[in-house]
């Protein structure tokens, strides 16, 4: 069965020189796809988690009574939301990477930064998506009626308690559709990590079609399919979550 499958694509490459699905019959190329997929998954999962945490914390700090805290959150949002993520990546890795401590390699010359390129990609992409998430959660928080908040504080809840026990659970439900969109975008933005040589799916794909120009279109198709699946799983999970958290009369 597998034999027939690989043979079919080998034959196809012979007959149509632009449609060489090399990764379906050359094990080495397949392994590159698998390893690229692994890094894309690592980046996606880590960035989704960190960016949501940044969003929740940032939205809370936005309501702080200290003007400087509010201003710095605003500054953070303006910077990360209004600049291209690709430039952020390059700047973090090359410019900020200079100031992080390094570990001297065994050869006495190489300096391994304690934050690798994968680390920088996770940090920079999380901050990028996190800036949007802060605004998304803010919109949710503002949708919670003032009277609900007052009711909570009249029951003796502190500011933090009101936020975590009353406002956030309600705000979260309102924010989910918008959050969904941003996280989908985040997963697709992980491909930009190619700029700092993170061997994710796009990096490996470009490598394959540079080594085998005949495999260019098939590899692009594979990228589409891989991201449709990846984003599909994310959206499916988010919808399930949305439904599970549904409370009658509040949001969807």
């Amino acid at each position, binding site marked *: 069965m597998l034999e027939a499958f690989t043979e079919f694509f080998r034959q196809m490459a012979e007959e149509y*020189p632009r449609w060489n699905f090399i990764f379906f019959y050359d094990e080495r190329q397949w392994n590159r796809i698998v390893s690229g997929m692994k890094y894309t998954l690592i980046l996606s999962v880590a960035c989704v988690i960190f960016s949501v945490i940044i969003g929740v914390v940032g939205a809370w700090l936005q309501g702080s009574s200290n003007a400087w805290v509010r201003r710095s959150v605003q500054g953070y949002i303006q910077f990360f939301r209004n600049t291209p993520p690709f430039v952020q990546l390059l700047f973090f890795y090359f410019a900020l990477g200079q100031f992080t401590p*390094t570990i001297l390699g065994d*050869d006495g010359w190489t300096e391994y930064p304690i934050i690798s390129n994968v680390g920088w990609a996770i940090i920079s992409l999380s901050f990028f998506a996190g800036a949007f998430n802060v605004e998304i959660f803010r919109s949710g928080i503002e949708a919670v009626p003032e009277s609900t908040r007052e009711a909570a504080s009249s029951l003796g809840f502190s500011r933090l308690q009101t936020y975590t026990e009353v406002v956030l659970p309600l705000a979260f439900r309102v924010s989910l559709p918008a959050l969904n969109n941003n996280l989908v975008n985040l997963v697709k933005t992980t491909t930009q990590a190619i*700029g700092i*040589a993170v061997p994710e799916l796009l*990096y490996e794909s470009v490598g394959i079609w*540079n080594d085998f*120009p005949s495999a260019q279109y098939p590899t692009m198709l594979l990228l589409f399919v891989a991201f449709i699946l990846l984003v599909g799983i994310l959206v499916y999970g988010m919808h399930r979550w949305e439904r599970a958290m549904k409370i009658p009369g509040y949001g969807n």
Partner: protein
Amino acid sequence: MLKKLITKTLATASAFSIMVASAHAACTNDVWNKVMERGKVVVGVKADYKPWGFRDASGAIVGMEIDIAQAMADAMGVELETVAVQSSNRMQFLEQGKTDMFIATMSDREDRRKIVGITSPPYYTSGTNIMAPKALGFKSWEDLRGKDVCGKQGAFYNQVVTNRYGVNVVAFTGNAEAKQALRDKKCVAWVYDDSSIGSDLASGEFDQFEMPLASEDDNPWGLAVPIAERDCVFGNFMSGLIFNMHQTGQLIELEKKWGIQPTKYLVDQKDKYADWLAK
């Protein structure tokens, strides 16, 4: 209705395949004729690969490959227009007709011959080597096993050295980023064309670095015409032009003009194609 659609599709498909088959059988010389009628040839060249193709202070694209393109245009009696291309789009530009041909530091590889018409003989050749800090004192390729080496996305030898020596190639999208990573000591070496590394070292910006290994995988560089015209007027003309440039030593002169380290390949080719009456 459906049946009609299927028959129609099949008819179109078979007509198309006949067209494709006949394109190889008979020479229509479409691109060549178009160039002659227009009086201008559009050539894809590199604009970021000193000294083969780069921009001078005035912004004009100059270099060894542009000189070859000029020699070609002169021989055809047409005007030359250059278009800056990249490794990742040079073949696509030619396929789409955005350029009539290209001379863009492309290694002649089997897989590429299926897509564009690479003519023989090649006009240049380069091997793979590394730029590494003198402090590390590498002696052989084996010394690199298991180490991080910076590279450039799109170079065919990334895969070759990975498979042969177990080198871990960290490939960046541009030369500048890769060389910056080497300066930042994020990798032990930068793997690239020996000729390009040679001119980098000569520039004086890399004093603590050297090119310590024996070059590997000497690979000819091929210029390309549309694949349908490789065995027609255009392809045969290019073969003849490059043959003459080898025989008359013009290529060696160009190499000297642009300050490229003399390659044994060009000298060998000049001997090989030497005019037997001129001896």
